[in-house]
């Protein structure tokens, strides 16, 4: 392998990569901002709605969870604008797609969290005269959310990985920038390796944080059982 590595060429455009990373984080952050509350609404509809609400919501959740994100992104970017007669730029399409897509996953996290709370908690709340809504707000959700935090963060990391797709509709995220630089410098090996390294550093740091949190929660959970 007589390849001459040359990172200098690439490092000249390093700030472009960082700008790309910023866009990656922007899309991820906004998708979380919209996706989490929407996920809660979907979960509550699926858990407590009547059949007319429960079934369609369940179908939408399953649809968003089982179709590839790229198919969703293309649909929102290429199909929706014509269908709805509105202009949607890549950034908007990306935020829309990933908000909806992640809301389906967050809905399932919420649902699992709510269902994991012991029946006795519902009964105790009911016994002091709470309505279901109040019991949910005051007793169930606060406990459920705490349990769900690791699953939420894992999902958020998963979301960040998925946003690499936005390059396919020409939104300038990190991967899109890397591809551009690779084409202009003919240094694909260095550029893509560096891009991968940046992703790894960011995502691995997040993963380690989640793992740390999980072990800490497990430890405090042991002493606060029941």
């Amino acid at each position, binding site marked *: 392998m007589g390849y001459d590595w040359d990172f200098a060429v690439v490092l000249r455009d390093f700030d472009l990569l960082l700008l790309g990373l910023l866009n990656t984080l922007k899309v991820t952050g906004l998708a979380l901002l919209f996706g989490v509350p929407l996920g809660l609404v979907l979960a509550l509809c699926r858990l407590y709605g009547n059949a007319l609400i429960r079934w369609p919501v369940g179908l939408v959740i399953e649809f968003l969870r089982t179709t590839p994100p790229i198919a969703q992104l293309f649909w929102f970017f290429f199909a929706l604008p014509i269908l709805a007669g509105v202009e949607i730029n890549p950034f908007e399409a990306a935020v829309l797609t990933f908000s909806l897509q992640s809301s389906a996953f967050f809905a399932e996290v919420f649902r699992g969290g709510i269902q994991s709370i*012991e029946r*006795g*908690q519902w*009964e*105790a*709340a*009911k*016994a*002091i*005269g*709470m*309505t*279901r809504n*109040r019991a949910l707000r*005051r*007793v169930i959700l*606060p*406990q459920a959310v*705490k349990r769900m935090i690791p699953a939420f963060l894992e999902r958020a990391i998963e979301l960040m990985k998925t946003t690499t797709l936005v390059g396919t509709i020409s939104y300038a995220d990190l991967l899109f920038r890397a591809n551009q630089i690779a084409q202009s410098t003919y240094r694909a090996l260095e550029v893509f390796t560096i891009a991968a390294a940046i992703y790894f550093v960011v995502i691995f740091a997040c993963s380690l944080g989640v793992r740390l949190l999980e072990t800490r929660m497990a430890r405090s959970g042991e*002493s*606060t*059982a*029941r």
Partner: protein
Amino acid sequence: MTEMLRLEGLVKRFDDLEVLKGIDLTVQKGETIVLLGASGSGKSTLLRCVNFMEVPSGGRVHLMGEPVGRDGRGAAISYSERDLVPIRARVGMVFQHFNLFPHMTVLQNVMEGPRTVLGLPRSECEARARKYLDKVGLGWKADAWPSHLSGGQQQRVAIARALAMEPEIMLFDEATSALDPELVGEVLDTIKELADEGMTLLIVTHELGFAYTVADRVLFLSAGRILEEGRPEEVLLAPREEQTQSFLRGHGRFRLPETPAQEQA
């Protein structure tokens, strides 16, 4: 005498299984009723029908002289959740597994009902919560987390939480069954104190000695019916029914306090 609770032909079915097969019972203000029976006899279900944790399948429940539920078409009575919520607020319940809210401190647990259900001002809730925590002897644990308390302490907090609603009837559903033997006493003492103060109590328990000392009336349930009913010395010392006798024989831990028995004789 004021009637607090009247059950007329109470029936509860779970799918095909009829757990309560027509219970008639009247409870006066200040009475302490102990429900005995083997597991599956329906005693817990009976209790849970009183505060409508379970909705009766048939018969009628009168609380504080008022029939609960609306007459529907035919014999069916319709219960709407909206009507049941305020009733539960007036009937306190203590569970076998305490069910304290783990994300709230002891004080917050006790304040929660008065604050969010009754909508009382904060300061009043806190004063009330502290009063009832003092009553169960746990005022000093107000800022502790439930997980840091012993089982007996948790159960006393649960009692304070129910009392803070200032209910008219209190239900105890095997309140000491999940406790280590050495912690049972403190909880029973707390319940006894309530009985002495004239609170109306319905108690499901396996502690026969306690039943003997605290009860005004003991009910023995079998297969969803009240098989035998009477003063504690009648049911516990001279049971008429074969089933009651064999149930009592099965509880070897039951030691009668000697003096009151002799007084009765």
